[in-house]
């Protein structure tokens, strides 16, 4: 019997993990709770289409289920789930040897990082849509921190937990990535 998202909406994440270990049906609550944002995250870092993202999501949740006892309650559950999904997505991309063609995340990044006045973005939209492919050349280790910081709105602490790197390294990477991102997109708004 599947437990609906509505019926478990007041149960905190940690409690839901404990309940899932006792009763598999509660695991569906975790799945439903995180499905929309995780699907969006997979697409943002990989640019792959929704069907492929769904496959990665399923594989990730199977792993999450198998390793549920590994979850350390001192971490936010979302950080741990993002970590598993992140690794699964990278494995998928490595197997496939290419990123997807979806530029949505590039456009979002452009909006969030480059444009100081988000409303003026509309004026550049066509130009941006035609040239944003160059952002795909940004190294993945920079793109992933940009996505987590500016699109997923994660804190340095959370990014550190997701990518398993020190907080200081997160800060350095974000600064370098922003600089690189600005350099690569300079021509678009000039």
């Amino acid at each position, binding site marked *: 019997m599947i437990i609906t998202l509505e019926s478990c909406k007041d149960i905190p994440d940690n409690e839901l993990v404990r309940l899932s270990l006792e009763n598999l049906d509660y695991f569906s609550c975790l799945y439903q709770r995180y499905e929309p944002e995780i699907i969006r995250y997979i697409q943002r870092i990989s640019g792959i289409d929704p069907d492929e993202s769904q496959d990665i999501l*399923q594989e990730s949740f199977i792993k999450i289920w198998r*390793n549920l*006892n*590994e979850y350390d309650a001192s971490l936010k559950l979302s950080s741990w789930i993002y970590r598993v999904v992140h690794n699964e997505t990278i494995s998928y991309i490595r197997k496939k040897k290419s990123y997807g063609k979806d530029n949505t995340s590039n456009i979002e990044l452009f909006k969030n990082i480059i444009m100081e006045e988000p409303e003026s973005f509309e004026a550049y939209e066509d130009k941006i849509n035609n040239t944003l492919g160059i952002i795909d050349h940004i190294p993945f280790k920079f793109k992933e921190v940009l996505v987590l910081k500016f699109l997923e709105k994660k804190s340095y602490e959370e990014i550190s937990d997701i990518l398993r*790197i020190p907080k200081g*390294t997160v800060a350095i990477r974000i600064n370098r990535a922003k600089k690189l991102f600005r350099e690569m997109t300079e021509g678009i708004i000039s």
Partner: protein
Amino acid sequence: MDNAEKIIEMIREKEMKPKARWRFTIKDSLSWAAFIIAVLFGALAFSVILFAIQQSDFSLIAHLSHSIFELMLGLIPLIWIIFLVVFLVIAIFSIKNSRKGYKFTSLSLAGFCTALSILLGTLFFISGGARWLENTFATKVRQYESIEEKKTKVWTIPEDGYLSGIILSVGDTTFKMEDFNGKSWTVEFSEADIVPSISIVDGEKIKMTGNMTSGDTFKADKILPWGGFQHRYHGGRDK
């Protein structure tokens, strides 16, 4: 059937169970155990490096007739430095792989592991363990040339003015001694500069600089205790 139902169905069908908690606990404990062992071994290696430094005669570099490179090779405890580096790398790698290890930078972990190895290694050296360890290693590993053996080699080149051994009997201006290869010598020491910390008496282990005047006679310029920076040396490797 929505996606949540599908995944629950799949888990049920394949009878997938979460891995037991103890497996993750053991994995994390193994990382910490590897870290502790590596730091301890690193500390042992560092203590022997200290012992080697104590036993070395760096003053030789200034006035030895054969090449400095050759002498440095003889003095630097290369194998123990390699051991120290290897164990530090293992320690850093182990802690990085522990549950919370990613929170620290490699540089800070390297600093921490090195400091810990230096601290424990110094304590082990002070307690006299380094000499015992080096001695045991030299006894058990045939290919290993001990610090004592290297030192003996450097100080048994009478034709270049370096001689060492044990005093057998002492006269007014000369004493009889046997070098570490078993050869007997008569040493003229009336004009020698004798380091105050040693006594020219039977059974004293010494090293000296000077000139070989014939096949079995040596004129000493300077006489030093056999042990490096120590005042007296009564131990050494038992052969």
